[in-house]
């Protein structure tokens, strides 16, 4: 690890695959995805809409739609293999050791119950505590997530709160049992731009304070560069590049990662008036088998060898930094320099 300390492994995901039977055949939205999350560490999963980020997180929580089929060689939380545990055991884990924050704060709270009821419920489900203890914990966490007059908020209903406040409530709810692992699935997409930054900083602070492992799913690379320890770039159901944030941002190796980074202006780096990049084409259909590199059709370096067989992950410049491309790391880097020139 870059900071030299080896943290305790919390979540280990290896070859996680999700298949969904649809009318046109079998959909493969998540294909052999592997990553690890350590205590006190944030993994950012980045990619375009429809690349399988959300399904990856839902499959870890075992909250996939009932038709979806999940397989993996490893899916372990804190050393406990989750693949074949009973639904009862999984329900015990959800909200306790591992919690999740969703994309849509406006609709993620039940309109018929008070904030207090929904917060307390999370703790009462997993701990033998009294109602008043649960309420105190709820107030403590509401204050933690920056909600003023926390105690009086408990009797309010979701529709009385703004989107930003609701997302803060959702964060507090996820923290009720003091989870070891927290998964945030695009927690700011539905919010105003001014509030997005506040919520993300809040999440990053809480993650450090409570020393949790965190997966943050986002398509906002600006966010990633600021709070990620590790980054996994997903494209069309596959992880195409993963490494520490530093590795991926300083030496983006996969052409897709390079393309993504060209799409965002970087203060001090991007010249004023320069054209921002764009990646032509659309994400391919994931129904049925797709041979070769999934990105080939949109890649500026694509050659015939990209379109057959399976392209596997290979090491980039540094250990721990891997990518999925037929080109050598230095070839990629050379291309990048050429493109930038």
């Amino acid at each position: 690890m870059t900071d030299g300390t080896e943290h305790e492994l919390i979540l280990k995901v290896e070859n996680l695959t999700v298949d969904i039977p649809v009318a046109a055949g079998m959909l493969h939205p998540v294909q052999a995805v592997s990553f690890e999350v350590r205590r006190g560490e944030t993994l950012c999963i980045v990619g375009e809409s429809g690349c399988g980020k959300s399904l990856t997180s839902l499959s870890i929580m075992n909250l996939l739609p009932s038709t979806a089929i999940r397989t993996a060689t490893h899916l372990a939380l804190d050393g406990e293999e989750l693949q074949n545990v009973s639904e009862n055991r999984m329900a015990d884990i959800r909200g306790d050791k591992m919690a999740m924050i969703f994309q849509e704060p406006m609709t993620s709270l039940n309109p018929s119950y008070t904030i207090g009821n929904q917060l307390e419920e999370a703790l009462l489900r997993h701990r033998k505590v009294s109602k008043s203890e649960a309420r105190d914990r709820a107030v403590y966490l509401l204050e933690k997530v920056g909600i003023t007059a926390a105690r009086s908020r408990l009797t309010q209903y979701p529709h009385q709160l703004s989107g930003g406040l609701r997302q803060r409530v959702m964060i507090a709810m996820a923290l009720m049992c003091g989870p070891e692992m927290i998964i945030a699935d695009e927690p700011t997409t539905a919010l105003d731009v001014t509030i997005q930054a506040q919520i993300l900083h809040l999440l990053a602070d809480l993650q450090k304070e409570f020393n949790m492992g965190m997966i943050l799913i986002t398509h906002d690379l600006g966010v990633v560069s600021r709070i990620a320890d590790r980054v996994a770039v997903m494209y069309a159901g596959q992880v195409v590049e993963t490494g520490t944030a530093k590795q991926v941002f300083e030496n983006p190796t996969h052409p897709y990662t390079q393309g993504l980074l060209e799409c965002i202006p970087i203060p001090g780096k991007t010249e004023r008036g320069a054209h921002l990049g764009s990646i032509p084409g659309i994400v391919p259909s994931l129904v049925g088998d797709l041979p070769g590199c999934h990105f080939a059709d949109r890649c500026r370096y694509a050659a015939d060898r990209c379109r057959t067989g399976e392209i596997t992950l290979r090491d980039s410049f540094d250990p721990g930094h891997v990518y999925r491309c037929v080109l050598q790391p230095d070839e990629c880097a050379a291309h990048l320099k050429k493109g930038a020139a």
Partner: protein
Amino acid sequence: MAPQESTPIAQPAGLPTAEEIMEPSPMAQMRKRVFGHYGIIIGGSTLLLIVLVAIFAPLLAPFDPILDQDLADKLKPPFWHDSPKYDPAHPLGTDLQGRDYLTRLMYGAQISLLIGFSAMLISLVIGTTLGVAAGYFGGRVDIIITFIITTRLSMPVVLVALAVVSLIGSSLWIVIGVLGLLIWDQFAVVMRSATMQIRNLDYVAAARACGCSTFHIVAKEIMPNVVNHLIVVATLEMAHAILLEAALSFLGLGVQPPTPSWGLMISEAKGMMFFDAWLIGIPGAALFALILSINLLGDGVRDVTAPENRN
């Protein structure tokens, strides 16, 4: 240097062409859905059969439904009764007046369909006008029309229909008129909400921005998009009207004897239930089959025209 807004995106090699992506045409898909839908097949063919029987009743029926009565022939049992009284000339037996039950059943289909369809048509015109107006104009118009709908709903149809018919006298056309004037509420409610949804869509706003007349917008932009709801409600209300006519006739305040109405046939046979239950069974089953087929068709139309709403 001229600012270059965007570079043309070339078709990347290897992407599927338009023809490959293209699904079957909408009409082909619709055909597939229609003919793959059990409800539509069963409901549609049963309804078609009943309609054909009703239309060709004068040709198909072995007797006259009213004139051919012979008290000596009364209460002949139907063919499934293994009885020496069975007369092959009357496969479904005869009623209390000795009239051929099959004949009356066939002519009864005419009455049910005529009343159901006509009453539905009247209520369709009233309800759609009110509903679309409320949904399109909103505001005060909506408040007033919603009030009218609420008032209408608060008066029980059966009771009001019975009272009105008893006061102004009963005939086929009065029953049609009274029912038509009473059962428009569903049309109004559904059309109101459907119109409201569509009115706020961008393409209606675009039509308005182009200066299209209200009539043009309602006729060209709104109606085509609510017509599937209209068909569904129309089938349900037609079934509703048929059931109401049968109930009114059963109570003696609908179609008057000797007209062969199924409700009336059941009413006339009520006293014979102990011994000749088939007298009630046959017209009731016909009524059930007719309503069932119309409802199945209506449900099917809803499924087929809005597949995203299924389940």
